[in-house]
């Protein structure tokens, strides 16, 4: 399936993600920023699709937008936010903010100029195996051990959460 108007979609999606990202931090109302974050994540999923990684895009939608963001909204709603809305948003540390931004910019420029070889020069092509298989082979093939460790880590996290909430049940 030859791609259709890729440049337009690329700029549209990345622009969308950028704007949503800015919205996240500038919104006063936490629910609005959570929605903006969801928009950003969906934009990212679109970009993954552009890179012929549908499985990753699917997982991104399910896990991030569908799962984690719902829990974000849960927490935002349970904690009443009237109080936090009243407080002054930007405290005085904008000086530190500027410095951090400058350092980050320098870092980007360095990486871009020095690590030319890192970036693939050609446009992503349709891989022969379907994306799901690639990931499956990678995940269960040579990175099997790390995958198990990660799942163990998650298990510990869940048990921790249950113990913390135990006193209330």
């Amino acid at each position, binding site marked *: *399936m*030859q791609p*259709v108007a890729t440049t337009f979609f690329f700029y549209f999606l990345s622009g969308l993600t950028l704007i949503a990202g800015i919205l996240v931090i500038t919104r006063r*109302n936490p*629910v*609005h920023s959570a*929605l903006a974050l*969801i928009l950003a994540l969906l934009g990212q999923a679109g970009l993954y699709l552009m890179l012929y990684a*549908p*499985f990753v*895009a*699917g*997982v991104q*939608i*399910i896990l991030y*937008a*569908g*799962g984690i*963001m*719902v829990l974000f*909204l*849960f927490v*935002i*709603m*349970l904690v009443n936010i009237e109080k936090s809305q009243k407080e002054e948003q930007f405290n005085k540390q904008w000086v530190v903010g500027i410095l951090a931004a400058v350092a980050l910019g320098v870092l980007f420029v360095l990486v871009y100029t020095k690590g030319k070889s890192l970036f693939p020069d050609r446009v992503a092509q349709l891989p022969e195996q*379907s*994306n*799901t*298989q690639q990931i499956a082979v990678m995940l269960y093939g040579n990175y099997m051990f790390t995958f198990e460790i990660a799942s163990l880590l998650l298990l510990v996290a869940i048990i921790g959460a249950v113990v913390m909430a135990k006193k209330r049940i």
Partner: protein
Amino acid sequence: MLEYIKSYLDSNTTPGQAGNLFWASVYILLIFLGLSVAVIAMNWLERKILAHMQVRLGPMRVGPHGLLQPIADAIKLLIKEDIMPSQADGFVFWVAPIVVVITAFTVFIVVPFGPTHAVTDMNIGVLFMLGVSSLSVLGIVTAGWASNSHYPLMGALRSSAQMVSYEIAMGLAVVSAVLMTSLNQTGTGTLSMIGIVQSQQVQQIWFAFKFFPLGLIAFFVFAVAMVAETNRAPFDLPEAESELTAGFHTEYSGFRWSLFFLAEYSAMIAVSSIAVTLWLGGWLRPFPHLLSGSTWDLVFSLLPGITFLLLGLMAFVGVFRMPKHPYFRVQTIGLAGFGVVLGLIGLLLFLPPVRDRIQDVFWFSAKVAFFMYLYIWYRGTFPRYRFDQLMKVGWKVLLPVGIGVLILTAVAGVLL
């Protein structure tokens, strides 16, 4: 133009995949129209069937046997004033129903009505479907929060907790079905919906009956999770009238409320079409291989025509039993006209070229219609689960069973 259409009709790839956007948009339009007609029909059907289950007649006044009732409802909802609570969060209040409707409709991109009749055939079809259905939770949560009053918030929290927990059970059931696709010796497994149905065709068995008990158990797990996912029947706690008034869409009215209403029905149709694709062999006609042979093919191909003729007949029976009072004259004519239309469609379906093309779409929608009837039947008979029981069923019953079925299917796949 004609041969362009003809060339398309017998091409073997879905329009989306073939890349021509024109046909894809035609399909999207078709699905959108088909869906709204289905929602309107469902509205009428639900009220009538539920009524007859409860020893009453259901809507009879608007049009013959209440046939125009859904249209009257639609107009009422459009005209009714669309109020917004005073301190409600305007933007979010406006976005929520849109999110819910979009997610309810995007699922249909992937749903295969026939080997080539699907908007596109993504190779991650099932995953895309699961992802989009999990997005609808967002709409509900934000809707509940935006109307900033006490009860909708509680309703929204409850329904989102319910949907999140039943999504997992649904996912597990779906994975075990997908696992079955790859276990035939010929090809590797596939996530794409059309691929799944084709592998059922190749393996000559519907997944519901594969590895005998396992397929069925996975099917039941999905069927239960499906009902809970759409907040229907025994799991309709968020809209429990007796406690939380009307749940997350209490503050909505007029058009916005009808969006939620539309989204709920299309979500129901979407989820049952997924069940049909995964377990009941999407567009395959029943017993494709037991009763194979041309005679059986002919019989099965005549069935669509026969059903429409039957419907027309029922309409005519209604006409004869209509009381003779002049007040009912308009209604009798209307009903007779409706009967004639149905009869014509039935006859049309007997024409050979139309007959074999309509085959798979008909079988697919017949199975989905069966699920719709089940939804209504549940609503008629089951009382409502309490919230903690609902969670208990979700986590302590469906989840372990789902995981168990998954493991057993894998083992069975390797061994058999």
